[in-house]
């Protein structure tokens, strides 16, 4: 071959060697390796000063005292607030996701009239007109149990001579019915689990869904050596850490509690209540262990054992939940034992014409609401109470799209907890009257305004903004604004007058009798916070934490003991239809031995039809199959004792 070609080959060889003697190739490779490490579509981070700003979060039922973590002023996370007794550093899974919900595309951007976006001016106009037109036939449904906003809204009603104030069904309401209704007490019942040496959770799923969950868990954590016993139809998450689980059907809880009273009375305990003798007679006659065992299936010796532990304790406490009767029985038992049950005073009101908390809890929403105009504040009755609410004109106030806002005539976007002034007064169950408030951490999302301001005038207030109402509240209760803003809580030490409290003997005697529905199996609806609550749908990061015992794909999962499954002729994974109340649910079967035989446990809070992909179309809505039965003797309605028929499909 020719010299030219060889020369060329050799030159290129030389060139190749030469380039290797320069940094070019290596730096080039290095740059390429870096190039492979930074993809343009992957979001980059924001840097700056990192702070933890204390405030309150209203996503769970009781509300959490939180610190919002911000970087360069932008909120990115939520952590607990060490200095606040409601948190002690911990928070619930819902509030832990607060910032993500705040930034969710599911937020409502602007006021809407029949689905059309309108201006805030227009919205206010419509609101005022409708209020005027409705006259006294106005109702309020509030999903907030602890906020001063309820004073504002109730004042609006008072101004219009209406008493139709409703809260969503909650333990606080049931407890109040028992305490102020049946037993003639005043103030709010609380339970001191932290200092008790024996705690009987009579149906109260205290570490997951009952009362101030986080405060309860903190109490549990700090209570060294205290013995916790859980009684209920299923082994809830609470039961996984208590030292004992006593299987008791929901409708039998009152009778079970009275069954324990039997032993306590036998031990000679008494209370200076006017109807004590009547009560004693009623229990000794009607609720002997044998009778209770017959009615509830709970073994007498189990009750004896529990009673023994309570009696031997120096500071026992019984935490009831479920029906009014169950609460009354529980309170009675506490009075007999004289342990860690507390009675909390109510904080002074800030708004003239506002109802007291007890008055607010009187309305029985399960009986149905029918009004010319219904104002719904951060509640989701269209989802949780599909049949109860009828209205000529509905105003829904919420920060995100829900079934309720979708169905409402007028929608007013509200600010997220982290964007507004809000407060928490004595969430139900806390051991002492405690007040916490929070100032805004983030700038409001574009278009968002504080919808509560629209009700200042109708409530007869001349304040500029709701913030002033909060200030008034703080002043009224005699707390220090600055300390509260710093995240500290204000505690009110005083006990309301207990004279004239009765044991509601006559009513309780009848009301405690277990009333069961007609369905084939009992239904134990349960709440897991990661799934959500009646008012708060599943949060963005929660789905990864929801177990396949609640949700598989888009199918809800119901749990039952193997014997129940055998009886119903179903097995793990079989698809079933549950029918009860006036509705039906579809679900997959999971066998879980921690459920009372003859009972099916179903998770509440799924099956949303409106919202983001994290809740919409996930599972089915158990509220549809709950049966409302009336506790005639207690003059209230309850979901306890719901039953369902199960059909394989």
């Amino acid at each position: 071959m020719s010299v030219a070609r060889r020369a060329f080959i050799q030159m290129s060889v030389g060139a190749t060697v030469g380039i290797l003697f320069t940094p070019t190739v290596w730096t080039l490779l290095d740059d390429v390796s870096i190039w492979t490490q930074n993809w343009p579509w992957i979001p980059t981070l924001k840097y700056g000063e990192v702070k933890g700003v204390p405030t309150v979060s209203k996503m769970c039922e009781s509300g959490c005292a939180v610190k919002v973590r911000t970087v360069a002023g932008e909120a990115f996370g939520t952590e607990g607030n060490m200095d606040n007794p409601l948190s002690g550093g911990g928070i619930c899974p819902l509030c832990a996701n607060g910032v993500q919900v705040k930034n969710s595309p599911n937020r409502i951007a602007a006021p809407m009239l029949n689905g059309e976006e309108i201006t805030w001016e227009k919205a206010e106009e419509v609101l005022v007109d409708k209020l005027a037109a409705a006259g006294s036939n106005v109702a309020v449904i509030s999903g907030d149990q602890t906020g001063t906003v309820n004073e504002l809204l109730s004042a609006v009603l008072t101004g219009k001579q209406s008493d139709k104030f409703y809260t969503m069904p909650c333990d606080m309401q049931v407890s109040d019915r028992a305490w102020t209704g049946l037993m003639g007490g005043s103030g709010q019942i609380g339970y001191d689990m932290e200092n008790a040496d024996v705690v009987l959770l009579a149906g109260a799923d205290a570490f997951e869904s009952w009362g101030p969950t986080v405060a309860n868990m903190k109490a549990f954590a700090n209570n060294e050596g205290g013995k916790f016993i859980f009684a209920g139809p299923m082994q809830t998450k609470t039961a996984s850490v208590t030292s004992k689980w006593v299987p008791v059907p929901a409708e039998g809880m009152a009778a079970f509690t009275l069954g324990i009273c039997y032993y306590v009375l036998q031990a000679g305990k008494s209370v200076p209540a006017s109807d004590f003798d009547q009560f004693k007679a009623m229990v000794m006659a009607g609720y002997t262990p044998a009778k209770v065992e017959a009615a509830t299936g709970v073994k007498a010796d189990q009750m004896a054992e529990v009673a023994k532990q309570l009696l031997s304790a120096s500071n026992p406490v019984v935490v009831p939940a479920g029906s009014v009767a169950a609460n009354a029985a529980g309170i009675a038992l506490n009075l007999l034992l004289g342990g860690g049950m507390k009675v909390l005073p109510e904080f002074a009101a800030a708004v003239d014409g506002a109802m007291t908390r007890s008055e607010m809890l009187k309305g029985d929403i399960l009986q149905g609401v029918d009004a010319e105009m219904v104002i719904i504040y951060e509640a989701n009755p269209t989802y949780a109470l599909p049949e109860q609410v009828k209205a000529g004109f509905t105003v829904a106030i919420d920060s995100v799209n829900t079934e309720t806002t979708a169905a409402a005539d007028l929608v007013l976007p509200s600010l997220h907890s982290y964007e507004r002034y809000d407060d928490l007064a004595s969430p139900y169950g806390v051991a002492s009257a405690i007040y916490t408030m929070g100032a805004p951490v983030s700038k409001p999302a574009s278009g968002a305004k504080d919808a509560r301001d629209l009700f200042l005038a109708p409530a007869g207030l001349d304040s500029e903004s709701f913030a002033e109402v909060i200030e008034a509240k703080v002043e009224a209760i005699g707390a220090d604004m600055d300390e509260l803003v710093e995240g500290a809580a204000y505690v009110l030490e005083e006990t309301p007058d207990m004279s004239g409290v009765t044991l509601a003997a006559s009513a309780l005697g009848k009301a405690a009798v277990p009333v069961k529905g007609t369905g084939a199996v009992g239904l134990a609806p349960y709440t897991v916070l990661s799934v959500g609550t009646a008012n708060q749908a599943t949060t963005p990061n929660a789905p990864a934490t929801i177990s396949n015992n609640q949700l598989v794909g888009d199918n809800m999962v119901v749990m039952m003991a193997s014997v129940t499954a055998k009886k119903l002729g179903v097995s793990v994974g079989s698809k079933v239809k549950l029918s009860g109340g006036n509705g039906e649910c579809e679900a997959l079967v999971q066998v879980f031995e921690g459920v009372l035989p003859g009972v099916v446990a179903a998770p509440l809070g799924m099956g949303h039809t409106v919202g983001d992909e994290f809740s919409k179309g996930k599972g089915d809505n158990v509220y549809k199959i709950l049966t409302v039965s009336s506790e005639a003797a207690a003059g209230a309605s309850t979901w306890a004792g719901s039953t369902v028929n199960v059909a394989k499909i």
Partner: protein
Amino acid sequence: MDSKLFPEGTQRCSFGQFMLWMGFLGAVFLWGVYGATLVLYNGIGTTGLDNYFGFGAWITFDLAVIALGAGAFFTGLLKYILKIKQLEKIINLTVIIGFCCYAGAMLILVLDVGQPTRAWFGYWHPNVHSMLTEVIFCITCYLIVLIIEFVPLILEQKQLNKIPFIHAFAHNLHVNMALFAGIGAFLSTFHQGSLGGMYGVLIGRPFAFREGFFIWPWTFFLFILSAVGTGPVFTVLVATLMEKITGKKLVDFKTKALMAKIAGSMLSVYMFFKIIDTWAWATGYLPSVGLTFDDMFYGFIYGKWLMFSEIVICGIVPAIMLVVPSIRNRPGLLYTAGILACIGVSLNRYIFTVQTIAFPVMPFDTWQLYYPNWVEYATSIMIIAFGFIVISLSYRYLPVFPLETKLNYQSGD
């Protein structure tokens, strides 16, 4: 029309017929390409792999083809280093098969790594302690060697070979082929071993973990043996398949039998150690971590029958069939044994890949099932189609089989 390109003195099917065949293969290949595109563009979430089964069909496929492709290095070793003349009659085919298998494995690996653009980090930031690094090194290097071994065959193509430069070049390569064969043998032996080592070193996976010799767990040596035990028979099977398809005799049975004999003896050695290893593992290691042999199996999918068929039906049986001359010399039985052996080694790779990670080590953890989805199948089949295409082209245009003319077009010998 392309008859000028055919090897000296051979006949091939009509161009139209050939195109039809290629069209079919091409279609299958494109189906795989579609699957591959989805994987590369949307991410590996597209496949049936998950957090429990990070390794699945792809890795199994890779290990299997690499084992079966071992015919290339081992035969090369025997022919060039140990100078077994007989084998030159089939050596070309072994090289082509080796090339297909390794090239295919590489393609699959590109899909299998989550960040293909970083695949070369194995060279840029190597971790010398990792068996996988060794694999990456050896496979890439060995693929290059195979290409070098393949090139002269291409250059011997009738028309190309007329060019003096190419002729000379091809000749030079041939002279040095022994060197490459040597390098190839070394590289291939090592990564066959490393592939086994990959599993043997998993201290967290009782199903696969093995003690070993120096830095190499026993699986290291077992994988080498199983590969050399099956590679040659696989070559024989391919040759036979080609004969069936083309209707020509391509390799004389004497050579096939020799290959089978070699494979058979290696396979026997392998089975001997494999059985000892399994026994030691079941009775020695497992109890030491609180586990029993039975714990390792579950239901039908992960049942004991897998290991039984691997070791007995597809291990001991073919080993015997191949070493016993009277059986080996019956074509039908030879091929059966060969097929069994190949299934055996593939099963072994599958068990080591999937069952290893399927066994729930934490007592409260559960056995999970793994189903590869069509994307994994399609891409794997794509590789097989690729192999067929390469071999078809080579057969049609390259002088792959030195004996072809002798066996088919000349009467007697």
